[in-house]
């Protein structure tokens, strides 16, 4: 019972009782976990796009477990990975990409203090976004004279491109799919708010689920548990009945003996 209970905390299981008193445990979706005395093994493989797949191997058959119907801790983790973690990490990388693109576009139209660079559109980019590692970094080997803050090669002291970049924080970022159109300066705060709200909802659901489980346990114990005082009372009662019966037998025995004594 305890083992089935701990197994059910991991996934949603269905238990069927067999005629010989043993139990078969299957997943909600039908794949067998324990049949008679054979048990299945569950494994995880990582896919090329860095998502994960669960596989169940029973005897000689392998099943791929579909997500969304698992329940329990494994189902919860899977739901978290798909609906929260992936969405958040995609959003953050979209914000990074948005910042990189906006800044680099503004810089491309500018000129640095390097007097040898005079062709338009040749301002060096400041940030680089790597889509495979999903990380933002500063262009290596960038030196001060490559910072293209001026809008005119003849006036290196001009700072109009720099002002444009400073003004970017009031521009909306449109490539963050989870948030719609947000101001660049506000994107991080809103993402944090989303995580906080989901987490709070999760905590509230957890509290509710725990209360329901405690209540269910109490009801179960109320029906089938043992109350020691009740058993003690019954014990005394049975003892008395036993004593009384013993007394009756003893008296009947005496009567019989007396009757026999009369006859002999």
């Amino acid at each position: 019972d305890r083992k089935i209970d701990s197994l059910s905390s991991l996934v949603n299981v269905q238990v069927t009782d067999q005629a010989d008193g043993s139990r078969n445990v299957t997943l909600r979706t039908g794949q067998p976990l324990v049949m008679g005395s054979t048990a299945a093994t569950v494994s995880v493989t990582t896919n090329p796009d860095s998502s994960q797949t669960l596989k169940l191997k029973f005897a000689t058959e392998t099943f791929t477990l579909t997500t969304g119907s698992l329940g329990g801790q494994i189902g919860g983790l899977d739901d978290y990975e798909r609906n929260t973690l992936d969405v958040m990490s995609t959003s953050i990388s979209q914000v990074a990409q948005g910042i990189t693109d906006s800044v680099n576009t503004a810089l491309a139209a500018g000129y640095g203090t390097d007097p040898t660079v005079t062709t338009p559109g040749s301002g060096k980019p400041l940030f680089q976004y790597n889509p495979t590692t999903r990380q933002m970094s500063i262009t290596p080997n960038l030196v001060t004279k490559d910072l293209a803050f001026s809008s005119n090669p003849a006036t290196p002291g001009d700072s109009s491109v720099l002002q444009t970049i400073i003004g970017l924080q009031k521009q909306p970022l449109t490539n963050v799919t989870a948030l719609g159109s947000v101001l660049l300066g506000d994107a991080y705060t809103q993402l944090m708010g989303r995580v906080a709200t989901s987490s709070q909802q999760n905590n509230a659901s957890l509290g509710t689920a725990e209360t329901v489980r405690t209540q269910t346990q109490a009801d179960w114990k109320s029906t089938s548990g043992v109350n020691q005082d009740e058993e003690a009372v019954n014990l005394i009662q049975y003892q008395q009945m036993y004593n009384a019966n013993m007394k009756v037998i003893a008296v009947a025995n005496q009567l019989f003996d007396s009757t026999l004594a009369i006859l002999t």
Partner: protein
Amino acid sequence: MRISSTQYQNTMSSALQSAQSNVEMTLEQMASGQKLRLPSDDPGTAVRLGRLSREEASLDQYLSNISAMRTRLQQNETLMDGMVNDVMQARDLMVWASDGANTSDDVKAMSSTVANLRDSLLYSANTKDQEGRYVFSGTATATKAITGVVVNGVEGAPYTFTGNTDEQKVVVGADVTQTTNVNLHDIAALLNQLDAVAKALSPAPATPGGPSPEVSVNDPATRATLKAGLDGLDSALDYLNGKIATQGGAQNTLDTLQSNHENVSLSNKQAALTLGALDYGDAAIKLQSYSTALEATQKAYAKVSGLSLFDVL
């Protein structure tokens, strides 16, 4: 409802767990001094605190920009003060030279002083800062402010202003920019006039190596040159003083902006405290009540679990 004996254990363990998690949460809050341990404790407040701290970061940056800009304005003012001194000296010299009682030799001596002052003004106008950028050229910081014409390897008149009159702007507030540079457009004309005076007071010899001609201040052409020089110096003085006054005005604006930013920052910090700081009195009371509940539960359990009919039998 029928209570089984193991129900007591369950109640006891769940009560212990919830009391301990409450105590732990209160302890964490007291240790950090913040009401929120995680953003999920109160998402609305967490977002508001995030926005406040972002605004704080902007204000810090503006304040640092303001203090950097002050240094630059100070430098501009000091350099221009030096130039004003040179101009006043030149003016005194001109007034003295205009005295008809001067001899030709006196006047020729003054001429070299005038030439020195002219060069000193030229060097001041072409000052470079520590990074090698010209200070008074407007936004064309790679070119000299005032350039002369090179003759036989010597740079001389006529001087022209080779910078530009564009402004370098610094962001010192939300959508607020201030100009930080000065250009000396009219000084080129002054230098040309000083050069003319110097040449008039000490004319080149008719034949190289020969004696230099006599100069008389009462000669109308010389007088006219001297007068033009004097007028040029007066207008240059006004020009420079005007520019210095602009720098002073900019410093005043920066003062106002700085105190505004500091006030807003203070009010933001107070708001952050109101939203996020822990009320220690309240937390201490909560801690006490959780501990009391825990103790009472434990004592009650000890008593109740000792109640058994089997002890009486």
